[in-house]
């Protein structure tokens, strides 16, 4: 297929994923990735990003590294995936060891925990923004909206384990989204 997006230089992939990885305090990293790669750089569409995010969450591995591999692969194939993965992990690798070395001192810094809590809250803001954009794009009809809400309640509120919820919700959702030859007895029957 020839709908390939413009070739993104490996250097740019490295720069973006290194920055995101090294500054991903307090979670919400995928929100930041979404903001830069979809919103600011326009490297991939919202739909493509969300599909990758769902794949990355269903497959084993950290969301951050799986998203780096997925986006890198979309942009530049396996080489892009290797560069993005290496870039997103290099910063945290050294920083986590640095923090471990300095931890006993760091927790004595005034307001350290409050600053961390604030960073986490702001990072959640990015996650909320990503979820809202996704909902506006992909959940306008009844069936996807019900699926999204159901997954949210099962995982977020009831704290059911991910694997069984995903194994039920994903095939159901895909079946409902099938363009033609849909089986009878759907939700909108």
């Amino acid at each position, binding site marked *: *297929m020839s709908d390939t997006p413009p070739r993104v230089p490996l250097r740019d992939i490295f720069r973006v994923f290194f920055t995101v990885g090294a500054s*991903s*305090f*307090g979670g919400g990293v995928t929100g930041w990735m979404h903001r830069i790669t979809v919103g600011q750089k326009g490297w991939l569409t919202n739909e493509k990003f*969300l599909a990758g*995010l*769902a794949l990355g*969450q*269903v*497959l*084993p*591995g*950290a969301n951050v*590294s*799986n998203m780096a*591999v997925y986006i890198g*692969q*979309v942009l530049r*194939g*396996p080489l892009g995936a290797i560069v993005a*993965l290496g870039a997103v992990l290099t*910063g*945290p*690798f050294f920083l*986590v*060891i*640095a*923090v471990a070395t300095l931890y006993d001192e760091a927790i004595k810094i005034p*307001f350290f925990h*409050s600053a961390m*809590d604030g*960073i*986490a*809250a*702001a*990072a*959640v*803001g*990015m*996650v*909320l*923004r990503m*979820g809202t954009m996704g*909902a506006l*794009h*992909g*959940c306008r009809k009844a069936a996807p909206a019900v*699926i*999204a809400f159901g*997954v*949210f309640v099962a*995982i*977020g509120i009831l704290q059911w384990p*991910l694997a069984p919820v995903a194994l039920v*919700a994903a095939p159901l959702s*895909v079946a409902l*989204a*099938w*363009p*033609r030859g849909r089986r009878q007895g759907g939700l909108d029957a």
Partner: protein
Amino acid sequence: MRDNPLLGLTVIIVPFSLLSIGGGPSIFAPLQREVVDVMQWITAREFIDLFSIARVAPGPGAMLTTLIGWKVGGWAGAIVATLAMFLPASILTLMVARVYDRYRGRDWHTALEAGLAPVAVGLIFAGAISIIRLSGNSMLTWAAAVGAGAVLTLRPKLHPFVMLFAGAALFVVAEIAGFWPIAAP
């Protein structure tokens, strides 16, 4: 395996990599059993400390394995543990992503893309809740998160760093003013 920590790290962590559906949190309990009880590389107290360090530092929570490797085998241990944790799952993701990419335009591909999006949206909001729960689940956290989301929506060019810094500043001010930290309900 006790004599060769690098081999031991690889043998123990690689299977966890392939089992870590949903990321680090799903393997922390069995990982603790393995490195604390079975191998006795670190104590339970050390494991908890390393866990919170991995949460404070940037990067995925699964970087906890990097710290375990570092404790067990220094820099070489850290590198081996990181590769053992991230490479197997990443290779699997790469293979799935490649197959997935090749069939663009097919019916099932379109259905997969449209069908996975709502699942992702549900997981995204669930993830937001879980981060808020870990950081105290307070009105202030909610207000700051929703406020940050609104500002980011209104100002698409704003660098995320500005937002993270503003969040840190807000909570430091809240602590000075005596509103933070609040005991979790």
